[in-house]
């Protein structure tokens, strides 16, 4: 069978997806500039697109790309040096710096690429960049996504993403962000930035903030892939496994969250047989991994532990709500917030009855952060309804319906308003 140009292009795309992050990471260590590294990698990709359709795909395409990019790097350094000789006014000091910066390319290639990938992840998620820039740069350099793919995923014009990436690379260069894995006290905060970026990508896929589809599974997959890669690169970090566990378990429910008519299905009403049990198992394993590393669970691991309580229950009725309430309490201690407290109230109500839950909810009534938050009256209404206090429940549901911006949710809440007139089911 003849290999067509389209086949070769598909193969090159696939090779790029497999190799690009390692390629860029390896190059970045050599040239100490992530932006330049990506340019070099892109040069190599262009060369492959030119040559492979005729020459065929080499046996070791990754090595071919690296060798090509390396040649380009050397060319650029040579040109740089020539330019310097012509501009001696730049001074000897710069010359000396250049000299030091000319990398030992061969030595660099043989080193373990894993450390480079980790360095790259810390760099693309550097706090000097805006959140949007971190997300775009991470998807591009580590996820192997094209600018067009990122633009589609976030429903913004391609030019916007392209500009974000260009600016991000410039910012990194101007700020002189070193290509390294941070150590000491800085490491923890930098790691949490990496985790935040990955989870942001996941969430954009899990409940899209824009567009007609409310889930975009491809983004969830990209985030999961990044998380799984990170778990191999930094296996000693419990929160990395915690985040992976959380994402695996949440992703396991993707196909059960939507009913046949496209309607959302509540967690407790989901057909648990439709959960993806491969992902559930992976999530529980990752959580075990986080727990086995010892110490107090971090926010991601705690959320994963909560998700795991649901994942382990064969039916909604088997859910260990007391344990969930305890985990929310621990989470509230780590990251105090009225929303966590509201979640705890729901779990307490499920474990100990609506009266106990209502007590907690009532303490939140004066929280300014929840003033416009429709879930507070919605939860309160539900608990009042269960207690048979229908008039009060009705008022709460009405208030919740007036606060929500989501049409489907409003319909649901107005149905509950109507149900209050009929009495408890």
């Amino acid at each position, binding site marked *: 069978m003849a290999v067509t140009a389209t086949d070769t292009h598909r193969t090159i795309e696939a090779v790029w997806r497999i190799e690009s992050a390692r390629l860029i990471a390896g190059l970045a260590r050599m040239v100490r500039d992530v932006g330049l590294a990506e340019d070099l990698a892109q040069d190599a990709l262009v060369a492959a697109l030119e040559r492979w359709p005729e020459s065929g795909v080499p046996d070791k395409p990754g090595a071919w790309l690296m060798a090509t990019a390396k040649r380009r790097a050397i060319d650029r350094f040579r040109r740089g040096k020539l330019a310097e000789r012509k501009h001696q006014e730049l001074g000897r000091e710069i010359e000396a710096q250049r000299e030091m910066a000319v990398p030992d390319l061969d030595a660099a290639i043989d080193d373990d690429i894993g450390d480079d990938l980790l360095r790259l992840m810390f760099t693309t998620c550097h706090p000097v960049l805006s959140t949007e820039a971190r997300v775009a740069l991470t998807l591009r350099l580590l996820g192997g996504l094209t600018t067009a793919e990122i633009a589609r995923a976030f429903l913004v014009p391609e030019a916007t993403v392209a500009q974000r990436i260009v600016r991000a690379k410039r910012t990194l260069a101007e700020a002189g962000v070193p290509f390294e894995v941070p150590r000491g006290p800085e490491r923890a905060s930098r790691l949490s930035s990496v985790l935040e970026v990955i989870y942001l990508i996941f969430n954009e896929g899990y409940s899209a903030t824009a567009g007609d589809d409310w889930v975009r599974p491809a983004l969830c997959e990209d985030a999961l892939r990044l998380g799984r890669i990170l778990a191999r690169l930094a296996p000693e970090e419990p929160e990395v496994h915690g985040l992976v566990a959380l994402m695996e378990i949440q992703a396991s429910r993707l196909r059960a969250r939507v009913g046949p008519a496209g309607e959302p299905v509540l967690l407790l009403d989901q057909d648990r047989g439709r959960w993806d049990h491969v992902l559930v198992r992976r999530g529980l394993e990752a959580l075990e991994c986080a727990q086995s590393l010892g110490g107090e669970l971090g926010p991601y691991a705690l959320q994963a532990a909560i998700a795991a309580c649901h994942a382990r229950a064969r039916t909604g009725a088997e859910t260990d709500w007391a344990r969930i309430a305890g985990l929310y309490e621990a989470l509230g201690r780590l990251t105090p917030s009225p929303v966590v407290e509201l979640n705890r109230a729901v779990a307490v109500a499920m474990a100990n009855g609506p009266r106990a839950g209502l007590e907690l909810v009532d303490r939140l009534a004066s929280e300014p952060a929840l003033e416009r938050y429709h879930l507070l009256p*919605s939860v309160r209404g539900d608990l009042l309804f269960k207690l048979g206090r229908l008039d009060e429940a009705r008022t709460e549901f009405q208030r919740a319906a007036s606060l929500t911006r989501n049409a489907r949710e409003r319909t649901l809440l107005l149905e509950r308003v109507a149900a209050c007139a009929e009495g408890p089911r």
Partner: protein
Amino acid sequence: MRFMVIVKANKDSEAGVLPDEKILADMQKFNEELAKAGVLLAGEGLQASSKGARVRFSGGKRTVIDGPFAETKELVAGFWLWQVKSKAEAIEWLKRAPFEDTEVEIRQVFETEDFAPSDPTGKLRAAEERLRQQVTSKR
């Protein structure tokens, strides 16, 4: 998307002969590469068909047939489940696998037709979902 990669049996696997150390080491290295790339979701090797059985359905009748089964090359001896972006990516990964004389099959797994577009409601009781948003927005 996901692909199941199906490895076929051979005389050795059917005879219950374990692969030699070199092959095992190569395969372990390959698995490690897959895991490091975030591609490997699951994978298992299967024991010889002599330890398996078949149930034949014919109308309402069920007949149990014990292994071993003859058509060695058609038997499944192991599988991987890979998460990749395209069939081409799955092929590229498979080309890197340390096999010698065999044929390995790639099959796409059904999914995503389940993801109908709609709006989110009913986050009421999906407690951890709300929390997720809160944790994200807080930082």
